[in-house]
């Protein structure tokens, strides 16, 4: 029996949106100065910036809903793993370039459909933020789609790496479509729709790109789930160590 009211659910939902962006943005930032070519180094850090910007405005809204005078920074820097509601795929390590591009493709396709739906939300602020984010996620998706197709049709080495990335990452994809107590409350309040309904669209879009890339979705395996409820893989704690270190060591330090 859930005791969550609509405002709390919306707060949790904003955290989920913000956390997906913050964690994926942090992962992309790890590529800074490590990209395979200069253009891609710039590309991945640009993507990262968009994600940080999106995280910031989702957290600002969450802070307003919470009404405890906290800032977006407080929310980003002062929670522990179990208080993060990002999807498991966003916290997976970067691996090689093919792995990162595959991760981006699987996530950005999801985010595109998510923001499309949310931009029609009855919650005005949520719909505005989603519309803003949608503009950016569209070219993120274009970028990763182009690379996955290029890698899949490139050399034998690039094809193998792209296929291996897909084989590993696939098992984190169902987690993005989990419907939990937060969703149920917001569906009841008619703020969001049942987001598991996005799965068929996501699947056919991803399949289309993977077909062009000559890559095959793995057939059997276990789907990992739990991110939206704060149950994470071991990787999240390590990300937070680096992300939060400064604010934990020097509380309130300002740029």
């Amino acid at each position, binding site marked *: 029996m859930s005791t969550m009211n609509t405002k709390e659910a919306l707060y949790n939902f904003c955290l989920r949106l913000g956390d997906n962006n913050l964690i994926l*943005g942090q992962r992309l930032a790890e590529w800074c100065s490590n990209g395979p070519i200069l*253009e*891609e180094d*710039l*590309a991945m850090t*640009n*993507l*990262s*910036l*968009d*994600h*940080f*910007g*999106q995280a*910031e*405005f989702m957290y600002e809204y969450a802070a307003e809903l919470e009404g405890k005078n906290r800032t977006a920074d407080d929310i980003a820097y002062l929670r522990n793993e179990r208080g993060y509601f990002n999807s498991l795929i966003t916290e997976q390590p970067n691996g090689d370039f093919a792995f990162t591009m595959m991760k981006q493709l699987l996530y950005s396709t999801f985010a595109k459909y998510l923001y499309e739906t949310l931009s029609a939300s009855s919650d005005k602020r949520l719909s*505005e*933020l989603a*519309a*803003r*984010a949608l*503009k*950016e996620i*569209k*070219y993120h*998706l*274009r*970028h990763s*789609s*182009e690379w996955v*197709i290029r890698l899949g049709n490139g050399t034998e080495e690039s094809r193998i790496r792209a296929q291996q990335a897909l084989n590993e990452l696939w098992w984190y994809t169902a987690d993005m479509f989990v419907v939990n107590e937060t969703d149920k409350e917001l569906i009841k309040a008619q703020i969001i729709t049942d987001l598991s309904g996005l799965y068929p669209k996501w699947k056919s879009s991803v399949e289309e*790109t993977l077909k062009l890339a000559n890559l095959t979705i793995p057939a059997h395996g276990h789907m990992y789930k739990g991110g939206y409820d704060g149950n994470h893989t071991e990787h999240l704690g390590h990300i937070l160590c680096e992300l939060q270190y400064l604010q934990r060591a020097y509380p309130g330090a300002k740029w």
Partner: protein
Amino acid sequence: MVVSKEEIWNYLSQIPDPDIPVISITDLGLVRDVEVSNSKVTVSVTPSYSGCPAMQLFKADIVSTLKTKGLNDVEVKTVYSPSWTTDWISDEAKEKMRKHGIAPPEKVSSEKSALFSESKKEIHCPWCGSKETQHTSQFGSTPCKALWFCNSCHQPFEYFKCI
């Protein structure tokens, strides 16, 4: 001190964009609204891109510029709707961009299909005007620009992405 909205817009039109200083923040359409009530000024701005780092800078510039005009009670608000579009960039500003070596965005930002569309556009080189150009990368030195190369004058250049 009584100050009109028009005067404030005029002051704001002199604040350069931190990344492309040849054009101002009003040229780019980043200032959405100005309100004056008694001595309090509220300026609403919108980000070009969500994570654009220049935004922090120009918000501070707005406060400090208006302060030099004797306006001490200034609030800068961020608004997200409607989302910024390159259609709000004035024609004059586009011409300044071109002279600065940045190919300006095309007139109407249109819905683009997911794959390969950007690289199929015809973009003229801001240096020599040639249309023999090619897309190098969707991402450049700032979130709003893409990298291109001119095959006629063999110069790289930036293109202001249209969103």
